[in-house]
């Protein structure tokens, strides 16, 4: 089993986390094809992926840039960097 080395809560086993996959921003004003691509297509290409992890015991979200090939966490990302707006 793996560890996620988090600057806030320290090294924790990933069994304490839920993995929510890539951080993706919905194309709220895109056409149908763009939307379908957002909903259904994921890139499996190894490389740096910005992803969300949810730590259940603390109820905290973490956004990390992780190299999926080498498994290295490259950076912890501030949530403000990936904020988006939706039509209101």
């Amino acid at each position, binding site marked *: 089993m793996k560890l996620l080395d988090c600057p806030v809560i320290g090294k924790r086993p990933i069994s304490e986390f839920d993995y929510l996959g890539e951080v993706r921003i919905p194309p709220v004003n895109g056409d149908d094809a763009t939307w379908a691509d957002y*909903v259904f297509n994921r890139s499996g290409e190894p490389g740096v992926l910005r992803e969300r992890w949810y730590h259940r015991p603390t109820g905290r979200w973490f956004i990390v840039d992780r190299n999926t090939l080498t498994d290295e966490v490259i950076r912890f990302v501030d949530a403000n960097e*990936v904020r988006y*707006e939706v039509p209101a």
Partner: protein
Amino acid sequence: MKYRLEPQSLEWINRSETLNFSLEGQTFSGFKGDSISSALLAGGQKLLGRSFKYHRPRSVLSMANHDVNALFQSGEATNIRGDVTPVDDGLALRACNVNGTLSNDRDSYIGLLSRFLPVGFYYKAFHKPKKFFPFWERLIREKAGLGEISTDWSATRQPKKYGFCDLLVIGGGASGMQAALSAADAGADVVLVDENPHIGGSLDYQLVNEPSAAAVRSQLKQRVVEHTNIRVLSGHYACGWYTDHYVPLVGPKGITKMRAAGVIMATGVMEQPSVFRNNDLPGVMLASAAQRLIARYAVKPGQRAVVLCANDEGYRAALDLIEAGVDVAAVVDLEWLDKRGDWAAQLQEKGVPVIEQSAIYEAKGKTSLKAVVVAPFDGRSCDSGQTRTIPCDLLLMSVGWAPAAQMLYQAGSKMAYDKKAQQILPQQLPKGIHACGRLNGAFTLEQRLADGERAAKEAVAELRGETVESDIGRFRDDRAHSHDWPIISHPKGKNFVDYDEDLQLKDLFNAAKEGFDNIELMKRFSTNGMGPSQGKHANMNGIRVLAEINHKSIDETGSTTARPMFHPVPVSALAGRRFRPERLTPMHSWHEANGAKMMEAGRWLRPEYYLPRTDVGTLPNAASGAVSASERQRVILQEVQAVRSSLGIIDVSTLGKIEVMGPDAGKLLDVVYTMKMSTIKQGMTRYALMVDDSGVIVDDGIVGRITEDRFYVTATTSHADAAFRTLSMKTQELGLDVRLVNRTGSLAALNLAGPVSRKLLSQLTNVNLSEDAFPYLGLREGTLCGYPVRLIRVGFVGELGYEIHMPADAALEIWKTLIEAGKPYGIRPFGVEAQRVLRLEKGHIIVGQDTDGLTNPFEANMGWAVPLASKPWFTGKPSLALLKERCQRKLIGFRLPQGFTGESNGELPKECHLLIENGEIAGRITSIAYSPTLGRVIGLAMVDLPLADQAKPLKARVDSGALITLEPCATPFYDADGTRQTADLTEVA
């Protein structure tokens, strides 16, 4: 114990404690500390097992947990490895894979047929005709194989525990001990693990008589044991390497799951056999096996020996034999004496003849070694024209080593064949992984100690975050300790490459001829290395043979991946304790005391139905599970009828309960749920449907507004955590000013439902319950029995009803009070099953039962909950906008003919039974139950369009294959205009 030697300086046995045990009924005795094999050998029992395929006589090979031809059974335990398993008083052993007894194995004739059993024979011979395969399979499984499994086993579990350290050093030999010490001296928190009961490694058997090693040994051991930074786990083996240095250490009491910051592998080398005719005869063993027998167990391995050498270590072993009183008839060296060092000189001084540039062409003997045939060897093959025969009962093989690099491979190390060492050596190691000692090509004691220190320095520097330039090759020996071709062909074969699987040299050649000339293919076709030892003494020779066949280098040939586990691990150790979280509601004790039959709902336990005590009579306790189907059905229907006619109460504490607060609370809920929540009036609730980006229904519940900036949200039992997670994720994604509190555990909830619910509740609460003051879908805060509660007018079961949300610690008291107050009205607690029937009568769906991972709201007839036009955005909206006109199926209601009970007039369909139209699947039943209210069986089915819109009968295929007719009908089945949800008993009556 006639072959027991005088006490040896480092022996493991305790001569003051004699243990008696038996093999096939014959009594043996050994000492405490003996392994099964050593005690048997000491008692003169040379024959320890029969081989896998040909039932050939076998004995000791390695004494290092690789002797898979000396396997025993005792009681429930099977495949006990005799070479390492301690003997115990009263142990009654049988040999594995023997038809009869060890000495009289009725299946030993199979060896005579080996000519007719070429490699891949089973693949080729038994697959046609197909119908005979089970026959052949049974026969083969009986004749070939390992121990018998007792199906009458008793369950055992061994606790597991987590361990942590800075550096895990695997292997307690010279280099491992030195590495542990150097790292510990530098301040690292070190765990030193060794599979043997005592640390010391080869120092204690290979160098046991070496004067120069004595001081080193005692100093290392003492310092290791006394060092406060070192924890020693002897008797434990590292069974595999997993990501982030997670290494399970298997010991006699279970597994320690060690998490290290770095690992130093000092796992050493595994001695490899020479391949020649009859190299499997009892009496032929690895030189290190004989050294282990002598030094650890004080067992004399034979009387007259020949030692086959291709390195210095063989000469050391020959000297050890002489010390142990074994007559060494000759040393046969595959190469030249002038390549050898001190030990060879010492041996010559003792007058032992050395036969240079020669090999063992053949071993002779029927059930044990009687003589060896020696022939000149040119490095590739023997000259069979110039043989000489030397009588002996012991032949030691000291022709080379293979690294115990299994975990290095698992960690992703780059390995390469080193021609100077004639050994595969680590080339580039991943972060946190270090290797030292013989595994790394450091062979002399000085080299091993220096290499251990080097590895420790590099490991500690790395732990400190310093950049480390590894000097991994610095202390490697410049002389080879392995021969590149210790393999002698013989026209009559029986020269085994893999003892586990009885593979002969020709089998590998034949496999290659048939095209399986890639290492992975050859392994699988020939099964080389696939036996219980996982090729620990077969893979290296297998690679050498394949390289030779293909005229390729060892590196080009490659090697197969050694996967965990390193040794077989008992299932009881892997299982560990049983940790299965179980969550109970505050009313659980009441449920159990009142006949509830509990069922699992995720982690929760919920009442499925109740067998009231008055009904139970002489019936066994409902909780014991001994309830007949008809009895179950009867009480469920009673529960349904109680709700419809008067009053029922159900524990719904398992619902997700989330407080959503803050200026942006409405905005968040508008994004997460399909319907507009920001417009809910204070004190009202709205149905809440959650879909994902693709428009698929994932959850439903209600949203209620407490104050302007405060909402209360419920979610389904199974989706409660996920709903909270989604809300918190969206809060973060959109940067909203919202606070969330998951109150699922701290609040309990119940649903009081039935026409008299208002009347009962009004006696106990300060909330005005009149229809005008507290309408359907309303939400009120107040007190009940003196506790703060929230009351919600809900309609899931289709009657006047109140969901009561209350503090968990008050819930049991409130529940009991309601039950007591409800007695005059015949209040009945109801379970999940009755609730399913009640909501089905109303046509309400259950997310996850009537919907699946593809169902969108339009298919579930919930287009009304999808305000595409009026809401600018919600999660999944673009998908639903596209899906609205592209539905492919639809949820419809159906019923069975009046009087269809599933007994005399056909089989009752079940949930998930398929609907068939023109022989094709056209849908499935998602819910079905007998409705006591309607007096017939009703249900919901997901049906392909356009079939769903036609009012014609549908056919469901039941278990027997019969087709049962379903009549489509409108939903709700019951109270279509919903009058009962607002009506008191008096009003409807």
